[in-house]
């Protein structure tokens, strides 16, 4: 299932798109189609539960693991909101031991990639999980949940149908080119489809086929890639100067960084929300990281003033060192930042460079090693003299 290997992401995409796939159509909108399908799977005892985005009240949305079929009404798996990175949530569920009964998990491509990174980091397990994902039109900022969501949805779905980019999307989604899931067993092709009327479901693995066997769907060979996917890829690439331009190296430096993070309140929400920032006791939260009297004195002697809370750049750059190799560009960090610092844009930009150096794309393949946890004997000879 996760056996594709290519040196570059482009090569990988080509390889992946060449895989032959089967598909079927359901004359219902995606969320309804999924509810039906999952209800049948639960009826037949093929899955014991469903993990998906759920509406839990008015303006309230969160991920939920549902085992009572009657509660399946609550799921809204394709609603463009991401209250948490689902990869991190599944890690919470499976960190101590794998789930015992099969569970259908519905998550976006970047969430699946985050989960695969977490598996490599020994923070999650995939056993007994059936992965359902979809070609992803992106998500809106979470605050939209209480602020005009219904109004924005119409425009959102219009863009998904035509392979466009909507202004309301998170910046990280505007530039995300990894919106076709890798490693899913079942994929809904939302991009390019009229999602008000019908749903196209692709089956990407034997596991997916096994689960769906016996359900009343008729499989046909999947058609060629939709033009809308290409359009979306192109439109997103075009957004890059706008989203990443402000982070050119010559714009940053000490001065640029202190300006960028000058209103950071040190809440560390960005790290807590980040799926691949996974330490349960964080160095930056530890007493060890507090300034002791002698450090305080040194700092004051050298600088004449001290910014409080301390260590803002130490935290931000430190986190870049730790997570850029695994960052999936999901945008959670920006979305939770109370002072609107575009954290995710900076992190995603650096993730591209750092991962690119090793020909790596975080989470594209659960079996691949994280570059910093492996090595070649003959390489990087220019480093270390």
């Amino acid at each position, binding site marked *: 299932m996760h056996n594709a290997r290519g040196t570059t992401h482009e090569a990988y995409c080509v390889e992946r798109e060449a895989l032959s796939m089967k598909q079927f159509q359901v004359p219902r909108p995606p969320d309804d189609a999924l509810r039906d399908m999952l209800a049948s799977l639960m009826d037949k005892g093929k899955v014991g539960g469903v993990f998906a985005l759920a509406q839990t009240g008015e303006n309230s949305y969160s991920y939920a693991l549902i085992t009572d079929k009657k509660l399946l009404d609550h799921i809204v798996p394709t609603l463009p909101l991401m209250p948490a990175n689902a990869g991190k949530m599944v890690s919470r569920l499976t960190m101590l031991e794998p789930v015992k009964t099969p569970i259908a998990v519905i998550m976006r491509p970047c969430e699946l990639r985050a989960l695969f990174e977490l598996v490599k980091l020994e923070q999650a397990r995939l056993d007994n999980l059936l992965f359902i994902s979809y070609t992803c039109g992106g998500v809106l900022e979470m605050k939209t949940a209480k602020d005009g969501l219904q109004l924005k949805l119409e425009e959102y779905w219009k863009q998904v149908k035509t392979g466009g980019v909507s202004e309301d999307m998170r910046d990280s989604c505007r530039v995300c080119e990894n919106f076709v899931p890798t490693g899913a067993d079942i994929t809904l092709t939302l991009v390019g489809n009229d999602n008000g009327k019908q749903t196209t479901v692709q089956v990407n693995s034997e596991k997916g086929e096994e689960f769906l066997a016996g359900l009343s769907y008729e499989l046909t060979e999947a058609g060629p890639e939709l033009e809308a996917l290409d359009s979306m890829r192109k439109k997103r690439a075009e957004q890059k100067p706008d989203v990443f331009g402000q982070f050119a190296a010559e714009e940053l430096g000490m001065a640029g*960084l202190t300006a960028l993070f000058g209103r950071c309140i040190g809440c560390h929400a960005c790290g807590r929300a980040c799926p691949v920032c996974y330490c349960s006791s964080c160095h930056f939260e*530890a007493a060890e990281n507090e300034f*002791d009297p002698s450090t305080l004195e040194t700092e004051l002697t050298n600088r004449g003033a001290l910014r409080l809370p301390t260590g803002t750049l130490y935290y931000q750059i*430190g986190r870049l060192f730790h997570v850029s190799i695994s960052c999936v560009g999901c945008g959670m960090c920006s979305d939770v930042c109370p002072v609107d610092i575009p954290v995710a844009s900076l992190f995603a930009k650096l993730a591209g460079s750092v991962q690119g150096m090793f020909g790596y794309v975080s989470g594209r393949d659960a079996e691949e090693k994280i*570059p910093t946890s*492996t090595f*070649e004997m003959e390489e990087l000879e220019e480093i270390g003299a």
Partner: protein
Amino acid sequence: MADDGAARQLDKEILSPKPGIQSPAEGGGDFQPRIVGFLCNWCSYAGADLAGVTRLKMPPSMVAIRVMCSSRVDPLFVLKAFLAGADGVLVAGCHPGDCHYQTGNYYTRRRFALTLKVLEELGLEANRVRLSWVSASEGGRFAEVVTEFTETIRKAGPNPAKTEVFL
């Protein structure tokens, strides 16, 4: 790096103002670079020791912090020294193939490539950070590395992070 000795040592001693070594920013005359060196116990620290006992000539610019292997150096160590105002940060370990723990320094090398990349992308001066391989018998080489690196840093001038106020 919870409760880590090396990080504490860095905080407590290395970066406190020391009499005799002052940067122009601190009101001194000639710029004397201050370099923090993380040296692996089995090779580079021994190499430094050899350079010392054989009285090789090298500038008194480096403060050594001993780590058990170069792979123990979390990029956070480098960053902490850098932000605290170290003019240069050296990480030194056994030559590839000679790590006391067999493969530690291969990981170091990848992690260091990442460290450099992040610094470059952030527009921070990656030339203030250096990785070198020095074996236990290479006292001369150690002196050369320190001399050369000190010269590079002298040309680059004091680390602006030293006087950046609100970071």
